[in-house]
């Protein structure tokens, strides 16, 4: 399909996916992480929010999570849930990597495009995710309408700056700072 189709978030789907993740991890013998996809529809059958599905999945299958912060923002807008509550409900110790990216406003929905700057609201959500998960490898995804290297590099520098700002120890824990 070359597309990420959404799943109905039900107990039965959870059983189905947990079994498959365990099988893949068993075959590969290496740690495995699942990413939250951006989505544009919700199934009527769903009985639990996506974050609860992912939290239980990662716990029962003992796998990692790849937290795509832009995808959380896009899906929250498209489905009308609170992106901050989603981040707060994700098990931070399971998150092995984060993604940030740009998206496009299509009027009635947001589309995850990887073709623009990371929006201010997504950087804000990234700050929240860093506070919850701690230092985490982060990838800036920009693979459509790829700009000049300087622009890409500046976006990566922005991610580093946000990380340093959020994860810097408070002043009382760094008395050396006043000596600089």
């Amino acid at each position, binding site marked *: *399909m*070359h*597309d990420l*189709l959404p*799943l*109905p978030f*039900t107990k*039965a*789907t959870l059983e*189905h996916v947990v079994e498959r993740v365990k099988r893949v991890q068993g075959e590969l013998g290496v740690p495995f992480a699942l990413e939250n996809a951006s989505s*544009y*529809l*919700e*199934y*009527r*059958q769903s009985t639990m929010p996506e974050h609860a599905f992912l939290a239980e999945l990662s716990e029962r299958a003992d796998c990692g999570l790849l937290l795509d912060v832009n995808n959380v923002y896009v899906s929250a807008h*498209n*489905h*009308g849930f609170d992106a901050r509550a989603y981040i707060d409900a994700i098990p931070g110790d399971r998150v092995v990597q984060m993604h940030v990216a740009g998206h496009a406003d299509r009027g*009635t*929905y947001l*589309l995850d495009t990887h073709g623009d700057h990371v929006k201010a609201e997504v950087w804000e959500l990234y700050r929240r995710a860093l506070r919850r998960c701690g230092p985490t490898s982060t990838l800036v995804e920009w693979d459509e309408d790829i700009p000049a290297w300087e622009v890409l590099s500046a976006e990566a520098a922005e991610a580093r700056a946000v990380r340093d700002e959020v994860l810097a120890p408070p002043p009382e824990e760094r008395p050396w700072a006043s000596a600089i």
Partner: protein
Amino acid sequence: MGERDLGELQRFVSDVVRGATLIGSDAALTAQAGALISPSPSGMAPHERLEVYREQFWLRHLNSIDEDFPTLTWVVGGPVAFRGLATGYLRACPPRTWDLQRLGIDLPSYLAGDARWGHDPLARDAARLDWAFMEAFDAPDSPPFDPRVLASTPEDAWPGARIDLHASLRLLSLGHPVHDLREALSAGAAVERPGAASTHLVIHRDPACFLRAVAVEPLAFELLETLRGGVPLGEACEAAARTSQRDPLEIGDKLGGWFQQWTAGGWIRAVRFDG
């Protein structure tokens, strides 16, 4: 929702997404979407939400295949005409693998049966050439062949030698010099529709990872094709001479020069004397 229901849901969504029909124009699909999908907070109807996926499927696949057939795109009249051809192709031959690089694998054979372009030999040649470039780009790598093997091999061992060609090598016998057309298009030069001319091409990825199309004489082409089948060199030379109705001695005279070209170009992966 059991496993069977999940499978049915997946089949429904993937069939609709790959379909040619605008979902909202089909009452049955719209009703099915409404039964499965919630409307959005912004007021999108269920079928409109599913349509986002259908639109993205076609955009992604058409954008991907656009880049894979530059020569054919020019031959059929440009990007708009190619989009029409590619849309028909993707409807008839939906993607079969996870790999977008393989998306055009059936386009040369689809084109041969196409009512508009199937009778245009230049279009068929262009499709085969473009696809050979795609295959050469993605072929597995192998360590460079050590040409010292050639110098250190006793003369009487050569007839039994089997020549393994590099995995990226593609041999094309065409009716037009479409490789010149592709190169001119790539350089942004003005081009004209080429006339018919028997053309034997070796498409390959060179040691520096550049894709090349090299025209070779028919006799060398015959020999390469036979060697690729695992036939020992002596037998392959005799077979090539028979097929091309040439004197085997003529091949013997040219073999040294050909081997120099083949080793320098990275066409040879290994020479085996294992019988």
